[in-house]
């Protein structure tokens, strides 16, 4: 019997837990309840809330910009996720052995992961700027383009690709480091057995390495999808939603409604819709991680 298993310790334990419980109740659970309530109201900060039932949700359904933002966010997610997964896995395969050069490469690829998305977006905002940026200078010098390209804020697709380049640079190392850990965790006997059986490198990748790291690949994919669906900083900084809010992501549109426009009820309803979409992916992620101790 443990020293902690006395009756009085039940209360002591609760006391140690109380600050965290109070914090989560106040700053996560309460706002969550508030969001549900506010979403049923028409509410700007200046006028008092007015209960309007599900009107905010039907309004969202008929709001063209809501669908444009959701569609753009999905497009961004669908384009960037395969690049991050395949690119991260390829670099992981290349650098998985612990030689000095490979370790150094891993450390370098990981550096942008620790810097802020705001800072990296400001950096790439400059690199992609039409007249002052290195991207155009380099492409012109290499003869790949004949005149400076306007990357950001004029054409939605071109802006999207420029931002995808910047975000791939920023987060590629995240998947890579998790993939390296997963590949290194494969028991050496398994790889050796495949080698002795004469499997080609491609067969070994497909039949040994990938299946044995599948759980990590799925998890990183989910983390990446959730992150991309919640994208904001890079679009706010690099395009400010331009042209015509075509590059305003879902979170961006929630932000626009809640804050500059102060349509708090509508903003809360949009937040809720977004939260439900994200929840689907989060539940799959939790089933995969089995993080709970239960």
């Amino acid at each position, binding site marked *: 019997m443990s020293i902690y298993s006395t009756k009085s310790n039940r209360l002591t334990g609760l006391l140690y837990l109380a600050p965290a419980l109070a914090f989560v109740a106040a*700053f996560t659970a309460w706002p969550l309840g508030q969001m549900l309530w506010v979403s049923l109201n028409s509410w700007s900060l200046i006028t008092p809330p007015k209960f309007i039932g599900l009107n905010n949700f039907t309004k969202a359904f008929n709001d063209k910009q809501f669908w444009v933002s959701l569609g753009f966010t999905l497009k961004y997610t669908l384009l960037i996720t395969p690049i991050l997964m395949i690119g991260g896995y390829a670099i992981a395969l290349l650098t998985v052995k612990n030689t000095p050069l490979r370790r150094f490469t891993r450390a370098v690829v990981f550096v942008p992961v620790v810097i802020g998305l705001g800072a990296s977006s400001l950096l790439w905002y400059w690199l992609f700027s039409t007249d002052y940026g290195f991207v155009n200078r380099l492409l012109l010098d290499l003869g790949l383009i004949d005149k400076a390209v306007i990357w950001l804020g004029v054409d939605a697709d071109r802006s999207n690709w420029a931002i995808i380049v910047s975000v791939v640079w920023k987060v590629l190392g995240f998947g890579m480091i998790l993939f390296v850990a997963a590949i290194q965790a494969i028991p050496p006997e398994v790889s050796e057995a495949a080698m002795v059986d004469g499997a080609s490198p491609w067969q070994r990748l497909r039949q040994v390495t990938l299946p044995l790291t599948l759980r990590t690949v799925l998890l990183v994919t989910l983390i990446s999808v959730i992150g991309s669906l919640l994208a904001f900083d890079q679009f706010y900084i690099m395009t400010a939603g331009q042209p015509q809010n075509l590059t305003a992501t879902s979170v961006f549109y929630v932000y626009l409604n809640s804050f500059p426009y102060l349509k708090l009820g509508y903003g809360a309803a949009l937040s809720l819709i977004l939260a439900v979409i994200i929840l689907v992916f989060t539940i799959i992620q939790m089933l995969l991680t089995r993080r709970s101790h239960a």
Partner: protein
Amino acid sequence: MSADLAQTMDHSVSGHGVLARFWRGRTKYLVGAACLFICVVMLAPLVASVLASVKSTAEAAAVPPTYVPQTWSLDSYLKLWAYQAGLPVYLANSFGTAFMAIAFSLLLTVPAGYALARFPIPGKELLFVFLLLALIIPYQALLTPIFLMFAQLKLTNSLIGLAIIHTAIQLPFSLYIMRNAFEAVPMELEEAAVIDGCNSFQVLVRICLPSVVPAMITVALFAFITSWNEFLGALVMMNRQDTFTLPLILAAARTETSLGGTDWGMLQAGVTISIIPCVGIYLLLQKYYVSGLLAGAVK
């Protein structure tokens, strides 16, 4: 990947003497070249930013831009130093918020981790799931109601308010790390301490804390990085310029259009300064960073 394939191919032809040696040599160079290429591509933007920040104002505004500075100058840093409320104010705001987020995270999750790991609390697993609530609801979605609440509590435009949001974002991760750390502490020492007459608080402080220091470093490290880099929460909560954190004031400087457009040199000086603490801490605490990432993401 092609280099990896080439490398493994070298095993399949290893019986063929000269050819094998040729492949092996070539593979080594291919892998080396691929690694160097990747390093150059990844480092180039950072180097470009630092170099742009030490160009003279005129050169930083040159069209087309120069790759390597022709002139060297700290003008961009001096201008940033005096920009709006002044760099010291923004650095103090960013560091202040980050240190409060670290303090709040540790004050909440060290006792909570101890309680979850050791005490027979009724409904413990249910409470744990409640504490992880932030995992299922992205904080981006909660900012509207949090803003309403903070407006009433006078916590908008307050570094404490912002630190609370940053703590809430990190809480599930921090708690998970601390609970696991306490569970890994061997119970024998605590038993001996109790027999010697220590109460649970003394056991926590004298016996357990020294063993969970690495976990506390991990929690502090991630709280710092999250807080230092967080953008949207700060954008929503802070609307007085003297309360801005570093990312906010730099984003504001980006759209500064008076006096002939963006000051690119100053902007890159700001980017350089905001990157330095993150990269510095990462290089110092790489081990904690990677282990925290693995624990948080895949376990």
